[in-house]
């Protein structure tokens, strides 16, 4: 994967309108007009968002001259998800393991170093 692909993806995902667009595309291809519907922003503003998503490889646009449907592209989103989730998972799961380990230590009775907790 190109090493700057992830930062382009984060930039694309850091905007709530763009995240909402991606969520809609999860249920199938949409035209620009259809995507603009739920938002109180202009078509040109939506197009700008779509350009950012396209540059990040998160969507592709159809070539049909009549309408250019937007389609969600899996790889970039999967890679970003994996990276971000990996970060979160590292800490969540380490903390889960810490929790279990501390219980184990207490059960073994090595928790006699209670210190001066008040």
């Amino acid at each position, binding site marked *: *994967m190109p*090493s*700057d*692909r*992830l*930062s382009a*993806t*984060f*930039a694309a*995902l*850091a905007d*709530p309108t763009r*995240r909402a667009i*991606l*969520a809609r595309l*999860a249920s199938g291809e949409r035209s620009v007009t259809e995507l603009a519907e739920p938002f109180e922003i202009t078509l040109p503003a939506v197009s700008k968002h779509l350009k950012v998503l396209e540059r990040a490889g998160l969507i592709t646009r159809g070539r049909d001259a009549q309408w250019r449907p937007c389609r*969600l592209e*899996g790889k970039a*989103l*999967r*890679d*970003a*998800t994996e*990276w*971000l*989730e990996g*970060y*979160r*998972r*590292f*800490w*969540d*799961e*380490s*903390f*889960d*393991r*810490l*929790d*279990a*380990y*501390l*219980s184990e*230590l*207490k059960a073994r009775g*090595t*928790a006699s*170093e*209670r*210190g001066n*907790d*008040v």
Partner: protein
Amino acid sequence: MTQENDAAAASEGDVEFVITRVFDAPRDLVFKVWTEPAHLMQWWGPKGFTMQKCELDLRPGGTFHYGLRAPDGSDMWGRFVYREIVVPERLVFVVSFADKDGNIVRHPWNAHWPLETLSTVTFAAQDGRTRITVQWVPHNATDKERETFREGRESMQQGWTGTFDQLTDYLTKA
């Protein structure tokens, strides 16, 4: 959080990553388990990972170099350089991805993620239990690195992670 940290974060306008959890154990024990290799080997890293190396020198300027083996057999290495150690209440260290020799490296997929992040871990005693708070922020970072970090964090907004899951489900079937 040290005043230095506060000032640095405020002046750079950095967005912090913060996580916090309460553990049902006394603070002295929890701090010990964070700072002794024999204990760290029992919990540091995600589920299914095993620690291949755990070298720790607990003093300001000292390092913690660790290797974690994933279930698929791949290795990931990390390094902490301690800046501040206040027993049993605070650890401040600079974290980086590393190689097996302890040199810091960039993540191979992500050229713009900060090379170094400053982590502050605080241990607060609460009625015989301990609240751990981990906060991290880019360290010695370029504008691009700070921007990447901020956007990565914003991509993980609460409520979106559920959508991520749905999208991932959709993508694996597509």
